[in-house]
């Protein structure tokens, strides 16, 4: 296989030229999807802002569908393909298996994304991302999603093939790095997710073409969420891997314990996909026993895994910082962290938002009886914007500040704006998710055009606080969109006009080790097996646990006050 290898002079990371090109194209395609999805987000937020109510209902449901598809699927999966190729060929310092097939995967995804978007924008497929039957979209909608998924599946197999190549060609010794292990977790969950998705979207495509008469709505919901929720577990595995990656690159941090961190990833594979059940807690077709089983053992073991990562990631950073001499008090290590470096600040905000906002709200939402308080309310998008936007997307944004100089060989433009961007996006997103969940707690529906119910036979007046929450949703939603637009501007601007950087040495063969003093190698030397206490992390973790327990029981209190149901 004729390819060349480039060693980045700034980090010591080695890129297979073919793989590098694929990473760049996948990342750029993802950013484009983010741009389209972001424009749609503006339409959504300006319509749900009661004082503005920009779009008519047909347009509102159209842009909401496009927003969901472009963000949850296209942006994130494209970026994840880049992450998979990076975690395999770059971190294992080997060639990418079958680059031609990887390109086939890329183009299938691109064509699928275009077809899916076309179907939605043509106006016949405003069925929301979930496309619950028997509401029907045009066949193109399902076809676009299927093509996209097949492309992603191909990417997963190229990743797995690359692991085999590295093993066979002995480009590393011992076990794969933790970040690659996390990416492998994401990949395995992705394969499961896509096969489940095929299991429901293919029959639905046939149904939309008139070849199948009927699809049971409860069955659809159960299988669809095997796709819909599991795909979020791909995101969790991917962004947790990126947390570890950034901790390693910025601080030279090593995992507190390889065993614990890897075991936590392994729990994701075993249990997280089953958490899809928590979308069906207020459904008629499942028994209480089924709901309790699937939201307890299965989901809580996955929650346990996230709580472990939530401890070991900051713990690894604390240990690395303490070794550097930041040992005063509980939090000197954190105070002296590089808060002006967007790679770190983005990653840390992602960690905090995901844990405190997304994680806690997700477990409450996923509790059988409590779900009745929030099912299909604005609380739900509040929760998943905390996980998938201020968690995953923010982590991807943070790592991009690292990738632009390394992978695209450009210096970031406007360092001042780069410094601000993670705070603008991360903090306004945090407030946004809080007020969205607040509105949901007051009953406001998701996917709903009009809080005033114009044209309904009766009136219902939402509490004043609900209107306030929705107005705040408008304000902080717009701020978050500005933060996202700023990121797109900085990235695209840097790719076009950023100072070109030295691309480093090219060679025909992979170089087995990174240069000794580079980022890619330094971690192995600063790290040592000796134990460092992490009291600051313990305090942060206890704070999370206490918030968790309090918020959990507050919701049981709310539940105990509603009508009796049995």
């Amino acid at each position, binding site marked *: 296989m004729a390819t060349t290898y480039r060693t980045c002079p700034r980090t010591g990371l080695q890129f297979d030229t073919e793989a590098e090109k694929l990473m760049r194209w996948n990342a750029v395609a993802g950013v484009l999807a983010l741009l389209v999805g972001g424009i749609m987000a503006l339409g959504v937020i300006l319509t749900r802002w009661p004082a503005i109510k920009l779009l008519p209902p047909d347009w509102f449901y159209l842009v909401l569908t496009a927003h969901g598809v472009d963000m949850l699927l296209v942006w994130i999966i494209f970026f994840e393909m880049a992450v998979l190729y990076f975690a395999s060929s770059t971190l294992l310092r080997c060639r990418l298996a079958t680059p031609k097939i990887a390109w086939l995967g890329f183009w299938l995804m691109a064509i699928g994304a275009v077809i899916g978007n076309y179907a939605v924008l043509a106006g016949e497929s405003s069925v*929301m991302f979930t496309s*619950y039957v*028997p*509401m029907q979209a045009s066949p193109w909608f399902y076809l676009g999603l299927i093509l996209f998924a097949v492309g992603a599946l191909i990417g997963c197999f190229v990743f797995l093939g690359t692991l085999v190549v590295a093993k066979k060609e002995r480009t590393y*010794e*011992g*076990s794969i*790095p*933790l970040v690659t292990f996390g990416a492998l977790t994401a990949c395995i969950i992705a394969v499961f997710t896509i096969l489940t998705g095929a299991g429901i979207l293919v029959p639905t495509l046939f149904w939309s073409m008139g070849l199948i008469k009927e699809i049971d*709505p*409860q069955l659809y919901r159960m299988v669809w969420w095997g796709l819909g929720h599991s795909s979020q577990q791909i995101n969790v595995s991917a962004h947790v891997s990126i947390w570890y990656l950034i901790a390693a690159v910025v601080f030279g941090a*090593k*995992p507190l*314990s*390889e065993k*614990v961190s890897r075991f936590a990833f392994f729990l994701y594979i075993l249990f997280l996909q089953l958490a899809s059940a928590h979308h069906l807690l207020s*459904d*008629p077709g499942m028994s*209480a026993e089924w709901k*309790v089983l699937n939201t307890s*053992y299965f989901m*809580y*073991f996955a*929650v*346990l895994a996230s*709580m*472990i990562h939530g*401890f070991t990631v900051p*713990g690894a950073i604390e240990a690395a910082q303490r070794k550097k001499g930041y040992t005063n008090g509980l939090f000197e290590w954190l105070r002296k962290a590089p808060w002006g470096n967007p790679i770190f600040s983005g990653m840390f905000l992602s960690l905090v938002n995901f844990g405190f906002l997304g994680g806690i709200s997700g477990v409450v939402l996923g*509790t059988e*009886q409590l779900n009745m*308080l929030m*099912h*299909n*309310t604005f609380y739900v998008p509040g929760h998943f914007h905390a996980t998938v936007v201020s968690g995953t997307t923010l982590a991807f944004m943070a790592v991009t500040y690292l990738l632009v100089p390394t992978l695209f060989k450009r210096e970031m433009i406007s360092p001042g704006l780069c410094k601000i961007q993670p705070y603008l996006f991360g903090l306004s997103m945090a407030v946004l998710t809080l007020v969205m969940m607040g509105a949901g707690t007051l*009953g406001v*529906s*998701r*996917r*709903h*055009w*009009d809080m005033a*119910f114009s*044209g309904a*036979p*009766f009136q*219902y007046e*939402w509490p004043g606080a609900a209107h306030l929450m929705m107005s705040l949703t408008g304000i902080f939603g717009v701020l978050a969109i500005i933060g996202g637009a700023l990121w797109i501007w900085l990235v695209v601007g840097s790719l076009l006009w950023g100072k070109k950087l030295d691309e480093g040495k090219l060679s025909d063969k992979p170089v087995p080790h990174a240069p000794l003093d580079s980022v890619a190698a330094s*971690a192995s030397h600063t790290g040592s*097996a000796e134990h460092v206490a992490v009291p600051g992390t*313990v305090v942060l973790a206890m704070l999370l*646990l206490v918030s968790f*327990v309090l918020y959990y029981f507050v919701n049981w209190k709310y*539940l*105990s006050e*509603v*009508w*009796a*149901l*049995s």
Partner: protein
Amino acid sequence: MSAILPPADRLWWKQSIDKTEWMWIFLAFTWAMIMFFMMIYWHINGKQNLSNEVYKTTPEAFAAKAEKFIAANTVRTETEQNIPVVKVPEGGDGYLVASLWKWSPILELEKGKTYKIHLSSMDYQHGFSLQPVNINIQVLPGYEHVVKMTPTQSGTYAIVCNEYCGIGHHTMLGRIYVK
């Protein structure tokens, strides 16, 4: 040994786990178990559990039952559309039909009494969202969900549809009176 390099110690799975990590794993695991038992506890001692009583049905069969119920128990009609207001017999069965884009009929209940409310949809998926109580239940076509409800306060309640069901979704507002 770093997250981006193979573990320096090839036998990483033999390394001992630090006490602090064990403590956190133990706490997190205990908390997960508490949350698990909380759901079961609520099934035994809690007063808000979603009913398991569900039957497969068809829109036609369900509509026929609902019409019979409406014909037998209507006390008056309201609004320009003459939506029937139906008094559900105490301890008895009431039917609530979700369709594009209305909840029918208006139900009249009494505070403190228990009713069996049958929910189903005629067409798309809908969401039963009782406000301002804030109870939310998915309503599917082909499934008849029998939910036992006991209103705790009198007043006028709205049923918002909170599952997207097309262009008229926002006009789908129903009503329950509790005396």
